[in-house]
C-alpha cells in the first residue's frame, strides 16, 4: 500500500505481520500466551495465531470455552501473576461481553491499588466488513475504550505498524485494546524480519500535503490515501495522518498539520456520535483556538446498524470517492466534482466467510 520503512524490502501482509510479531514475542518471552476462540484451530484466527500451539505448546496458545467475560477475567488473573496474555477476538462485536472485566477491572487495577498490581494484557479485536457481515459482525468500539482512563487503544493500519505496535503492546505493562480491521489483513507492506517496537502514542504522516489534513482511523486510512490520490487530480494536496494509537493520541502531530493546512477532515471507522472523530476535532480546536481558525468536518459509519445487503452496505461506509468529495467541498465550498473511483480492491476481493 505504501512504504513506512524504506530500509527493508521484504513485503508481507498485515495478517502475516501480526502473526510474526506474536511468534517472535512468544519466542523471546515465555510469559507471552495466546488465548481465545479459535486460537489453535486449523484456521488460527485468519492465520494470525495459526499453529502457535505446535511451536510453543498448548499451555501457551489455546482455544477457550465460549465464555468471553470469564476468559477476560482469566487473562487478567494470569496477567496479575506475571504472564502476558494476548486475548484474541475474531470480531470486536463479541468484546461487548468482556466490557465489565475490561472497564471495571483491567482499567482500574493499577490505579485502585496504587501501582502494586498491573495488567499487561493485550486484547486483539478484529473489526469486520463486507460480504454480508451485517449488524453484529462489523462494529468498531474503539471510542468506548478511548473513554476509559487506564486503557491504551491502538489501531494500526500498515503491516509495519501492525507488527511494531503489537510488539510494543505485548511489552506494555498496561492493558492494550489492539484494534485490527479484516479488510487490512491481505494488504501488503514492507516489514523488517527482525523484531522491532513502534512506540505507542505516536502518529504517522502517510502523505504530505498543504491544503487539508485528513485523519483516517483503521481501514479508513487506506480509503483516505486513495481519496488523496483523487484530490491530486484537481490540484489539492492532502496531508493524510494515521494516528496509529488512539489513546494516548498524538494530537500535537495532528494540530501542527492543521496549523499548516487550516482544514481538518476526520474519517472514522465507526459512528460519529461521541466518537473518536468528535474527540480529535475537539482536542485540535482546544489546542489551536488562540492561534488559528480552521474548518473541520467528519465522516464515519452511517447512523444506522450496518446492513447486510451490498448496495446499502456500500453507502454505510465512507469511500475514497465520498471522502475526496467531502474534502473538496471543505476547501472549495462547492460540490461540482465527482471523482472517478473504483471500489477498494480489498473489499472487492473479500469473500469471507468472515
Amino acid at each position: 500500500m505504501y512504504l513506512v520503512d524504506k530500509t527493508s524490502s521484504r513485503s508481507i501482509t498485515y495478517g502475516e505481520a501480526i502473526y510474526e510479531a506474536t511468534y517472535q514475542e512468544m519466542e523471546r518471552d515465555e510469559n507471552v500466551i495466546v488465548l481465545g476462540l479459535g486460537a489453535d484451530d486449523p484456521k488460527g484466527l485468519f492465520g494470525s495465531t495459526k499453529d502457535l500451539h505446535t511451536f510453543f505448546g498448548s499451555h501457551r496458545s489455546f482455544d477457550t470455552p465460549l465464555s468471553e467475560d470469564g476468559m477476560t477475567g482469566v487473562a487478567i488473573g494470569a496477567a496479575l501473576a506475571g504472564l502476558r496474555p494476548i486475548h484474541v477476538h475474531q470480531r470486536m462485536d463479541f468484546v461487548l461481553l468482556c466490557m465489565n472485566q475490561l472497564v471495571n477491572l483491567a482499567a482500574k487495577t493499577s490505579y485502585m491499588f496504587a501501582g502494586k498490581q498491573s495488567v499487561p494484557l493485550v486484547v486483539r479485536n478484529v473489526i469486520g466488513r463486507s460480504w454480508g457481515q451485517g449488524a453484529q459482525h462489523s462494529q468498531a468500539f474503539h471510542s468506548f475504550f478511548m473513554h476509559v482512563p487506564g486503557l491504551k487503544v491502538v489501531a494500526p493500519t500498515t503491516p509495519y505498524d501492525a507488527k511494531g505496535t503489537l510488539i510494543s503492546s505485548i511489552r506494555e505493562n498496561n492493558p492494550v485494546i489492539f484494534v485490527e480491521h479484516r479488510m487490512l489483513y491481505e494488504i501488503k507492506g514492507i516489514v523488517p524480519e527482525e523484531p522491532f517496537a513502534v512506540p505507542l502514542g505516536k502518529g504517522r504522516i502517510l502523505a504530505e500535503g498543504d491544503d487539508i489534513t485528513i485523519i483516517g482511523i483503521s481501514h479508513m486510512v487506506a480509503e483516505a490515501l486513495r481519496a488523496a490520490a483523487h484530490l491530486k487530480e484537481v490540484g489539492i494536496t492532502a496531508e493524510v495522518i494515521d494516528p496509529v494509537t488512539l489513546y494516548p493520541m498524538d494530537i500535537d502531530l495532528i494540530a501542527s498539520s492543521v496549523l499548516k493546512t487550516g482544514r481538518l477532515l476526520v474519517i472514522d471507522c465507526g459512528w460519529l456520535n461521541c466518537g473518536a472523530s468528535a474527540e480529535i476535532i475537539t482536542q485540535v480546536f482546544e489546542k489551536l483556538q488562540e492561534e488559528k481558525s480552521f474548518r473541520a468536518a467528519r465522516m464515519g459509519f452511517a447512523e444506522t446498524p450496518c446492513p447486510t445487503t451490498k448496495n446499502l452496505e456500500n453507502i454505510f461506509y465512507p469511500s475514497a470517492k465520498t471522502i475526496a468529495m467531502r474534502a473538496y467541498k471543505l476547501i472549495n465550498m462547492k460540490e461540482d466534482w465527482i471523482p472517478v473511483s473504483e471500489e477498494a480492491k480489498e473489499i472487492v476481493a473479500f469473500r469471507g466467510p468472515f
Partner: protein
Amino acid sequence: MEKTPDYQRFYEKLYLIRRVEEEIIRLYPSDKIKSPVHLSIGQEFISVGVCEALDPHDVAFGTYRGHALYLAKGGDINEMIAELYGKEAGCARGKGGSMHLIDNKVGMMGTSAIVSTSIPHAAGYALALKNQKSSSLVACFFGDGATEEGVFYETLNFAALKKLPVLFICENNQYAIYTHIKDRMANTDLCTRVKSFGLQTERIESGSILDVYKTAQNMVERIRQGEGPFFLEIDTYRLRDHVGPLEDWGLRKGSKEDALKWIDKDQVSVLGGLLDDFSKKRIEAAVEKKIEDAIQYAEVSHFPENEELYKHVFS
C-alpha cells in the same frame, strides 16, 4: 500431613479481626473513614480457618467484604487502617479504601467491589501458577450472591477443564443485601450445581472454624497433588448490615431470632473459651495494642498530595 490446629493462633486472628471491625464501628460516627465499609462480623471464622490451612506463598482473592480475609492472610494492619482513613500510608495510598484492600507481599490480591469479578482472576492466576510449575495455589473467596453471576459458571467450567489449582470458597450468609437466597434461587443446593461442572465439593453447616480448617486442609493438600479445583461452601451469618456499621434486623426478611443460633456459636467466643485465661488475656492485650498503634498510625499519616490524583493510571 494434617497439622494440629493452633487454638492460640486461631483466637489471635479471630479476635484481631473482630476488634478491628468493632473499632471501625466506634470510629465511624467521627467520619474519619469516609467510605463504605462491608463488615465481616460473624463471618471471620471462614477467612481464618481457610487461611490457616494455606501456606504463606499461596494467593488469596476476595471481595469488597474483605477486612477479615485481608487480616487473616496476614495483611499489614497499619496500612489497612491508613487506607480506610484515606491516607497516603494506606495500602493503596488512599485510592482504594475499604473495598479495595491489597497486600501483595503476603499474597493478598486486590479486592473488587463488583460482585464475582475476581473469581475468574483466581482461575487465571492459577493457570499462570500451573504454567510456571509452581507449588502454590489460589484461594478464591466470594459470597452466595456471586454464584448467581454468569462469570462464576464460566470460571468453574474453565478451572475444571484445565484442572487448575484453585480452592473456591463460598461464604453463604444467605443474604444479598436484604434479599434471602430462597427469593433468588429456585434450587439453593450450590454443591450439586457446582459438582456438575466437574469439581469436588463439600458444604460445612456447623459454623465451626475447626471444621473449616480441617476440610480446607484436606482440599488444599489434594489440590497440590494435582486433583484440580475444589469448591467449599460454608454456611455463615452476617451480623451487621450489608454496608455500614449498623445492624439490619428490621430491613431483611427473617429476624434477629434467625441470627441467635449463629450468635450462640460465635467462633470468637468459642475459641476464646478453649484457651486458658492467661493466654487469652495475653493475646487480647497484644491485639489491642496493635490496633491502637494502627489507629494512631492512620491518624498521624498525611493525606496524599494533589499530584497523586494522576499517578498510577498506568503502571
